[in-house]
């Protein structure tokens, strides 16, 4: 069942009822294709996505490359105008692109990028980066205030002592340190929502954990709502409260992280989970069900976008796009298998 249908469903799954900070409703993004041959065509990167971020909660957005995760994040950050659908900040629809209102929006919603090597301008020192963030969002800071706030930010991201890092250039820092600077920059605005677009995928395995733990800590400390985008489903399980799975621009499954990862409902999620490397898995793992490649987003398959790869595809899947259907455990899956009266094939039992 879609979240759109009201907080009532959510209430059933998350009894703690944290207030909704940021919400996407039927968010859609089509990128027009340039050039003469592609006239009138569009990349349907995001199609009618619903998403809710609550205070103090981490929502993981997983999906394979090109499934539209980053596009969702950018839409939420208002970096792209949406083709249709709404973004609501604390229940208020917002649509800003430039100027003061945009700034006011980014004060609330900040974004962290995948690649800390690329998201920091090589010519600016840590001080410049953080000072800008503070100055943009908190005008009229005195020099002393600024200094203490700078030091505070670095403390917050565990770069201690602050003086050691404040005057460094990005290239003088390790990947983990850079990503911390990027986080500190985001925190400089004192946001309530943090959109983290694959914040650790470019980092070394041994330092990933540090950054994730930092984010976790910050979430608890500052009561942030975090959207955690990743293609590593294991880290979604580790870090996120809820997990939303995307495929080819659409949300195919959502629910609390533990059950989504341990007991995937949608065939795509199953594929994803079973593909993830897992040392504990039995060596003779069963032949994986699905193969093939992600579809073209310019001419997506009709019906369920997953049907060409789905081992359980039915005729209906080819024509009708499935709505979000409850799949037990307070989860929803966009799959006709969960429609009433459909017999579940073997291998698709949702474990209790």
């Amino acid at each position: 069942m879609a979240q759109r249908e009201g907080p009532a469903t959510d209430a059933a799954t998350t009894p703690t009822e944290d207030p909704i900070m940021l919400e996407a409703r039927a968010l859609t993004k089509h990128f027009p294709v340039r050039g003469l041959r592609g006239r009138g065509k569009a990349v349907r990167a995001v199609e009618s996505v619903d998403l809710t971020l609550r205070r103090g909660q981490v929502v993981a957005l997983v999906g394979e490359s090109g499934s539209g995760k980053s596009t969702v994040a950018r839409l939420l950050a208002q970096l792209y105008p949406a083709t249709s659908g709404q973004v609501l900040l604390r229940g208020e629809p917002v649509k800003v692109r430039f100027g003061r209102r945009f700034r006011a929006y980014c004060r609330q919603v900040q974004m962290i990028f995948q690649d800390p090597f690329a998201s920091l301008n090589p010519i600016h020192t840590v001080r410049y980066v953080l000072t800008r963030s503070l100055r943009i969002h908190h005008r009229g800071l005195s020099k002393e205030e600024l200094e203490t706030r700078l030091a505070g930010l670095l403390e917050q991201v565990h770069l201690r002592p602050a003086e050691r890092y404040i005057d460094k250039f990005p290239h003088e820092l390790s990947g983990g340190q850079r990503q911390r600077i990027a986080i500190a920059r985001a925190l400089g605005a004192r946001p309530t929502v943090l959109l983290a677009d694959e914040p650790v995928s470019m980092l070394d395995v041994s330092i990933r954990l540090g950054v994730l733990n930092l984010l976790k800590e910050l979430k608890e400390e500052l009561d942030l709502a975090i959207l955690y985008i990743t293609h590593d489903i294991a880290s979604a399980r580790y870090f996120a409260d809820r997990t939303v799975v995307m495929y080819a621009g659409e949300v195919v499954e959502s629910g609390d992280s533990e059950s989504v990862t341990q007991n995937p409902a949608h065939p795509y999620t199953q594929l994803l989970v079973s593909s993830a490397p897992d040392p504990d898995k039995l060596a003779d793992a069963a032949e994986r069900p699905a193969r093939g490649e992600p579809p073209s987003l310019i001419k997506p398959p009709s019906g369920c976008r997953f049907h060409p790869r789905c081992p359980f595809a039915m005729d209906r899947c080819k024509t009708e796009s499935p709505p979000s259907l409850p799949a037990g455990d307070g989860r929803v899956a966009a799959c006709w298998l969960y429609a009433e009266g459909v017999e579940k094939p073997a291998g698709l039992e949702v474990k209790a």
Partner: protein
Amino acid sequence: MGQRVNKVDTAVTSTGHRAAVGDPVLEIRNLSVDYGYDDSAVHALRDVSLTLGVGEVLGLAGESGCGKSTLAYAATRLLPPPGVITGGDVIFHSSRDDRRLDLFAMSDDQLRASRWDDMAIVFQGAMNSLNPVYRVGKQLIDVMTAHRPDRSRGQHRARAKELLEMVGISPDRINSYPHQLSGGMRQRVMIAMALALEPQVVIMDEPTTALDVVMQRQIVEQLVKLRNELGFSVIFITHDVSLLIELADRIAIMYAGQIIEDATADDLYRRPRHPYTYGLLNSFPPLHGPRRELSGIPGSPPDLTALPAGCPFHPRCPHAFDPCDGKRPELQGTGREGEGHRQVACFLHDGYEVAVPGHLAIAPKPREKSS
């Protein structure tokens, strides 16, 4: 070039016996590599020894910058300037025709002839490994014409199609240009190309890091299948230890230009001996099983230009003790029964009188350890 020709005899020799599974096919001995030619050179590899057995999948893991790629390139002498091999040997034992090649003593022509035929390599940036201006078919065929000039073009072409089919690409893609293929397909083309001459060793440097898990899974499965069919040996490089554990027979962990642990996949996963290995394994959240607390590894990876004295890992090591900051531990057998060729470079296992933490514990090694 002229002087090198004299060395032909020493470079290629016959070992005189047929290889069996488990025999070494590639031996890397005390390999050292520098970047730079003068005193400010970066010592990217120091005395690395590694043996690849016939039919074995050897995993090589470690943090970014620890020298995995350098090892792969150096072992094939493809390291770009300013890389220079400053010591060691790489010996290739052909299990098919009893040749023993000393890769560092071969002339250019010998090397060219041996390349790809004996040992093929799939690079880290396999996305960029295809020449953008030639059709993939041509690129598959040109390696065959270079090494099998006796066969006809038609045969090569048929073989190229066969290869593509083998890696799961429709043979009519033979006329595609690289940019017309998706990343996963290009990767598979590279794998197909690596197998074109049925080499005995395939080195794969992070062949799947740029792909997402579904694609990675497909490629890895394909690789395992092909290995089972064709029986080549693989050195598989990645920093994804969990993938290696699933895939590899044996895993070597590198840290700061050295191998610090070398064990079978299972041993390594269940009973890591080196604190770094342990930390590495503890950096991956498990997808299944109980949600355990992850410790990770504190600190950040070392800078090869300014390595700490002693064990390079000691500044980050929770168990560092006396000799760690003064002496460099050597990679040696753990000496424990039933651990076969298992090796580790850590003073915790070097007979010092220290309390070895439980998770790394093993019986102390006898002082007079041989091998």
